[in-house]
């Protein structure tokens, strides 16, 4: 009787171990770039329309990058990225600031929905696309200051290191694995200190930099 009981407890322990391991395993790789799952947002926000290239001449050629965009700087909306640890979702007021005077799309379903939130003074419950575990502290400000302001790289390139080519997407979708190994890989590369310097350095590799 006791032997049976012992066995069943052992088996239960093993199954729960395997089960929980399987449940926690990383999702299968979808692309070499480790594309995250598509995420349904309350409003299907078109990044390509806002950040996409603005070159009407290329519109006809499907081999050219997506165009018809406004080439708005990432930091115009994600204004906190250069000032704070978090990039921040733009406040609703920022969307309305422009859209109240853009009559041409005022009646489109997405914009109507946007104004519904605004009229109710309710925040839009966006889903997090890049939600790091709680023990990781990623600092947007440090990266934007380093690459955009010190090295003078284009904003979309700097943001794109981690977020991919956002200007081609509607709602954002994870493009990179964003694992520790992936972060460290870049931190080991030598970068010039600033736009004009020949001196190079690499990103910090202390545990404490991200885990504190």
């Amino acid at each position, binding site marked *: 009787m*006791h032997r049976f009981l*012992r066995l069943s*407890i*052992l088996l239960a*322990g*093993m199954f*729960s*171990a*395997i089960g*929980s*391991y399987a*449940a*926690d395993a*990383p999702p299968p790789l979808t692309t070499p770039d480790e594309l*995250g*799952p598509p*995420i*349904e947002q309350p409003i299907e926000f078109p990044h390509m329309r806002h950040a996409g290239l603005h070159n009407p001449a290329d519109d006809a050629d499907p081999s050219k990058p997506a165009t018809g965009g406004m080439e708005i700087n990432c930091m115009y909306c994600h204004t*906190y990225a250069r*000032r*704070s*640890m*978090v990039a*921040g*979702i*733009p*406040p*609703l*007021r920022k969307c309305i600031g422009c859209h109240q005077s853009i009559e041409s799309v005022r009646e489109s379903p997405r914009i109507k929905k946007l104004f519904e*939130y*605004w009229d109710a*003074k*309710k*925040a*839009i*419950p*966006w*889903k*997090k*696309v*890049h*939600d*790091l*575990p*709680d023990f990781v502290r990623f600092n947007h400000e440090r990266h934007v200051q380093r690459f955009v302001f010190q090295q003078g790289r284009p904003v979309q390139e700097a943001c794109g290191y981690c977020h991919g080519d956002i200007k081609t997407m509607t709602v954002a979708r*994870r493009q990179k*694995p*964003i*694992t520790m190994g992936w972060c460290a890989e870049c931190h080991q590369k030598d970068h010039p200190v600033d736009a004009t310097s020949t001196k190079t350095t690499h990103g910090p590799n202390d545990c404490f930099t991200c885990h504190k």
Partner: protein
Amino acid sequence: MIENGFNRRDFLKVLGWGGTAVALSGCGNTSIENGKETVVSYVEPEDYAIPSIGVYFNSTCAQCDAGCNIEGRVREGRVLKLEGNPGSFINRGKMCGLGQAGVQAHYNPDRVREPLLRNGSQGETLTWDKALSLINDKLNGVKGEEIAFLTGGVSGHVKVLLNNYLDALGSKNHYAYEAVSPSVVRAANKKAYGVEMPRLRLDKAKVIVSFGADFLGAWVSPVHFSQQYAQFRKGNRPEGRGVLVQIESKMTLTGANADRWIPIRPGTEGILALGIVNALGAGIPADAVAAAKDYTADRVSKDTGVPAEQIIRLAELLKERSPSLVLAGAAAEGYAHGSQNAAAIALLNQVLGNVGKTVEAPANAQFAQITPTTGNRAALRSLNDSMAQGKLKVLFSYGANPVYTAPDALKLQDNLKKVPFKVVFAHYLDETALEADLVLPLDSALEDWGTSIPEYQVEPHLSIQQPLMERLYPNTRGVGDILLALLKQRRADEYKAYEDFYSYLRGAVVQNKAALGGAGADDDAFWNETLSNALVKLPGAAGSLSGKASAVGLTLPAPAAEVVAYPLRLIPSVSASMRDGRHANLSWLQESPDPLTTVVWDSWVEIHPKTAAKLGIVEGDIVEVASQNGSVTSQAYLFPGIHPDAISMPLGYGHEAMGRYAKGTGVNVFKILDPVFDKETGELAINETNVRISKVGNRVVVVKEEGPNGGSQLGRKKIAVKVSSDKVDLSKEV
């Protein structure tokens, strides 16, 4: 015992597999998540609001009556951390542990969230409208003298509304009660200096002799005094490094910091003070000489247990180094003759010529209607008597927990039942709130508006308390809002202009802007400036000290004879964290070790090792401490910092309610205190309880931070060497 259970081998196997299972499954979110949590942006942010960057707002600490000015770090609409406000006159940018725990008082899981009405032994929720109209109904036809309001110490505009409300009800029964307050010293100061709280200049004194005033721990305004003490200890000030002598029966945090800690037989502090006056010899006023002439060093030494040469050396030290400062604290005042002790100590100050030098006059208070009303035990006693005689029909209670802090001998809990309708304004369901018929949930100090004036003032100022974040629970209300709503029931016309307490407060401050240094300023600009600083200077004429400590009427009883049945004296201790127990449900305070014993999460009984050896007690023995009025059991802790004739237990533990962290942690020492009162002020003589202790039989491991050998430093030999007091030559020391 488990019979036929697993053997050890099987147990380990299961444990191993179970551990592996836990390790494999990990805990929580360990890799990047996509689209699970929401991120909520602002709709219309303030210009300064940047996510993840904290903004600091000034306010006022409500954790104790020192009224320190604080600033709170607010991030994404939540207050995260409190710091001292650098612009403060009291705490000058610093803060204590009790104040830090203010965020826990705010986020506490056991806060009352809805108005509750008694239904048998249960409370049922009701709306605010119903609660307020119920109060109105219950007050109808009740005479003014049958209504009473019990509070802690109050000041500021809440006090104004409170008094106006009582006035509207035709009642004069405002009972201000503080369970642990320096009210005997206040009365003695009033006599000796003409003010209850003179300004003390620890930083100017060359010697401080403190009779049990724990000014670094829990006495009056500890953060302010700690800073003065730091100045006092600096060798490079003109007066040189100061010397602190602490005289008390039970070592306090201040005693532990003193150059010389002198244990004294409980209750003989006044005798020692007169002994020092006597030993000062020539050059002191004649009446003092006359009063002290019988107190020769030998006699005083016999009475107090302090060696005669130490008394003489102390007098020499005080004569050599002037100005000095002599303080009387809880250890000296908690006796039936506490007022006499305090008077003798004040006389010593007078004789030493410290008045006017290290004891200064505070500025005269303006705006009498908002100056602090301090509490004492005498108020509780007279309230208790009124209740016992059935004189009260309606009782309001705010900021006091008398059911917990009253000794059992007063039978306060029974008397409270004689009041037909009791309204308690509560943050938590504490012991008093559980006795209430109606409980009104209060905003936390970080959600509420208010003003306060601390009792101990450096510069006269009005401190503003403002919300650092929105209410956590929609159905709590500020105490000012409740009082205003109640006032509107009675004096609708007078108060109809004020929509809420905020508008009342703003109106009251802005109306007086000329007197508050804002003459000619724009109303909005002045108000915003005031809120930004969270304090505003009050006009104050320089005060003066009147009165004079005199030896007239000073009679000190002989040291108490030993009571055979109860041979030990119980000295309840007030710790910096626990105070009178009002914050026992803050786990940070339970977790922070007592500075002297390092015990956490429990009460303890401090016993001198010699006494313990006599009784056969070792550390961790569960002992019963019995007085004539009850008994408690707790763990023994052997501690050389206590007089062998005394034992000590901390106050503030042993709640029967008040939330998950307070309930059942330790034992409540208030309960077993004998109802002995100071003869002049009526304050409870907190050190007048004689007890006996006996082992109950069990022994536990005392949970404490220090090592098993009481501070042996990681197995190294002790650094501090113990020297018995008769071998100490003070003349070489200081």
